[in-house]
């Protein structure tokens, strides 16, 4: 016992202290629990995405001896490119694969045999080669052509071999052939370049994301060019120069509310204003970019105003006390000091725009586009829209491609956010 009794040492004080410590401990545990739960969910998402998506990065190809039969392709012997383009290359591929299995003679069996390779993929590949170099006609080429998506899925283990034959898309006979080809090394898996260089296609084995990525980048460039200067300018004006009255209060409230407006509403606005009123082209990255710019504008404005507000007023006082005008103080000191925050806000706004699907649906960027867009007014798709389209398709092979496209999108987003963090710390270190 101490010499004198303090109210901080009594039994009741100990109880109070225990309770207080308990409360603090519980709060910390809740926090820790929330973090762990978030990490688990994130890991789950990553594992499930990578788990289903990684197989889309490789694809099975079949090595074929293709005889470019002059009698089939160019009976007139003119070597006319136009004629070659129209020629029956399908028959060439069919003959090549029948020649590999000479024992197959029945018509339905032959048809099943042809389905091992990607009908349009192999045909187009040979057609393009012959068109580019008509001298190839009459020769025999050893080519690597994509297998059909069903064969690819079988070899990737997505088709259950033990399921009844009628319930799978590939017959017992086809499985025998494929296994034979696989055993001889004629069917091999290789890196799926098509996924990165190709455009959208009806056939999963030929589909790629290049068109969508280019469309997204174009729309994003337009959005950046429009929304960052406009947003930063608006924020600087509202924060520093606009008179404080009911009207500017009203504008401020509206900007804040705009940030919470569902993005599809911006799509409707784009449809009504840019397409119907101004008559801009449908499905164009230009319009997509403008819509995304409208959508990110509030984010940029809010981030810029917050960044401006966080600049120490003592710096501005210093500039003013030297005889700098208010405008000089703002542009020489406040805006440069707010730049890291402005930059971060802009990049995060852009990342948000990159992942946006709904407004693009409304202005027609949901179209099936089979060419890489060459200009801002050409029809284009966007990566998130592409994901949306693929996720809706029936074939098993689309599932892995959807996941793979999501992986690509997420990697771009993570890169953008990392860039934002890097630039912020880099710029802040200078000061």
């Amino acid at each position, binding site marked *: 016992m101490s010499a004198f009794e303090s109210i901080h040492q009594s039994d009741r004080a100990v109880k109070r202290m225990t309770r207080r410590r308990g409360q603090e401990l519980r709060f910390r545990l809740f926090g820790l629990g929330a973090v762990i739960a978030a990490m688990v969910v994130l890991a789950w998402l990553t594992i499930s995405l990578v788990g289903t998506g990684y197989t889309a990065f490789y694809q099975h190809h079949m090595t074929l001896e293709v005889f470019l039969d002059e009698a089939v392709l160019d009976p007139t012997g003119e070597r006319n490119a136009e004629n070659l383009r129209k020629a029956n290359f399908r028959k060439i591929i069919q003959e090549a694969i029948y020649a590999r299995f000479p024992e197959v003679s029945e018509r339905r069996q032959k048809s099943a045999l042809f389905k091992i390779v990607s009908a349009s993929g192999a045909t187009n590949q040979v057609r393009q080669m012959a068109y580019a170099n008509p001298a190839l006609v009459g020769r025999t080429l050893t080519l690597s052509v994509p297998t059909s998506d069903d064969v690819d899925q079988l070899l990737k283990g997505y088709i259950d071999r033990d399921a009844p034959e009628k319930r799978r898309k590939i017959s017992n006979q086809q499985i025998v052939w494929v296994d034979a080809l696989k055993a001889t090394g004629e069917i091999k898996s290789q890196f799926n370049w098509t996924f990165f260089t190709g455009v959208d296609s009806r056939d999963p084995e030929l589909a790629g994301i290049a068109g969508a990525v280019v469309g997204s980048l174009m729309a994003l460039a337009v959005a950046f060019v429009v929304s960052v200067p406009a947003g930063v300018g608006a924020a600087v004006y509202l924060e520093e120069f606009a008179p404080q009255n009911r009207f500017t209060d009203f504008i401020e409230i509206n900007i804040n509310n705009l940030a919470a407006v569902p993005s599809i509403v911006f799509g409707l606005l784009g449809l009504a204003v840019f397409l119907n009123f101004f008559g801009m082209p449908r499905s164009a990255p230009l319009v997509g970019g403008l819509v995304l710019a409208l959508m990110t504008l509030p984010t940029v404005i809010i981030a810029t105003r917050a960044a401006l507000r966080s600049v120490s007023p003592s710096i501005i*006082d*210093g*500039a003013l*006390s*030297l005889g*700098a*005008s208010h405008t000089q103080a703002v542009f*020489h000191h406040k805006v440069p000091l707010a730049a890291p925050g402005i930059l971060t806000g802009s990049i995060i706004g852009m990342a948000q725009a990159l992942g946006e699907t709904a407004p693009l649906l409304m202005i027609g960027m949901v179209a099936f586009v089979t060419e890489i867009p060459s200009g801002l007014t050409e029809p284009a798709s966007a990566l998130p829209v592409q994901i949306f389209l693929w996720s809706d398709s029936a074939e098993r092979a689309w599932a892995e491609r959807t996941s793979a496209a999501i992986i690509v999108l997420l990697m771009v987003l993570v890169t953008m956010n990392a860039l934002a963090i890097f630039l912020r710390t880099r710029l802040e270190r*200078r000061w």
Partner: protein
Amino acid sequence: MVMAETNVVRADGIFQPVLPKGDVVDMAKKRREPDAEKAKFACRDVRVFYGASEALHGIDMEIANSGVTALIGPSGCGKSTFLRVFNRMNDTIPNARVTGDILMDGEDIYGKKVDPVLLRARVGMVFQKPNPFPKSIYDNVAYGPRIHGLAVSNSELDYIVEKSLKRAGLWDEVKDRLKESGTGLSGGQQQRLVIARAIAVSPEVILMDEPASALDPIATAKLEELIDELKEKYCILIVTHSMAQAARVSQRTAFFHLGDLVEYDDTQSIFTNPKDQRTQDYITGRTG
């Protein structure tokens, strides 16, 4: 620095800088010593309002053309508010309103023709917390001359920067790292950098709002030494919480209490023979 290449060291060892041509150099040659007899500022019935509340209740005061005038008083007495009247920094506070006459060299600084931006070039200010710009030491000092277009050439700007830093007693400490950030200096050095920055604009008056309150005793001593040197060339008004500091650096002292100017006299008289009971209580430590 360009200056170093053009300077000449004479045979007898005397350093002779080659002066660049330009306004600042010309003005520096022509600059007349301040007329100590005349008042720099004359204030009549100066009141400052923040919204509806009156922070200063009609101050009548003359500030001498040279020397240091100290404003002392307990917290919230209005001395900082009064200081900010002279360079119209109160203009930047929403709802702040100044009435009465403040004449600088006989001219009303709140007159319609007066541009506060130009006024602030003539009346420099140093704040309580050192606030160098997050830029290089050189750019900190060069900022004022740049925005006012005082230097016609880079060599003249170099000259102004060097001269200002020398006058602020900082040159020897920073001459080899002018490109480094001003925020990397110590608190005392930062405050002297801020003074150099103010001097670079060639002001007539320097207002100091508790310039030493964030500094340790050694940095404070250096700063006071500097103020003592500067008082020859500039009219200095200093707000301070430290009565010892007011006694050390100032020639005249004004005691403020609750928005009133209670007593204004020679520093020595105020501290040895205060006439008002409130002044006596404050300087002897009974209130405050």
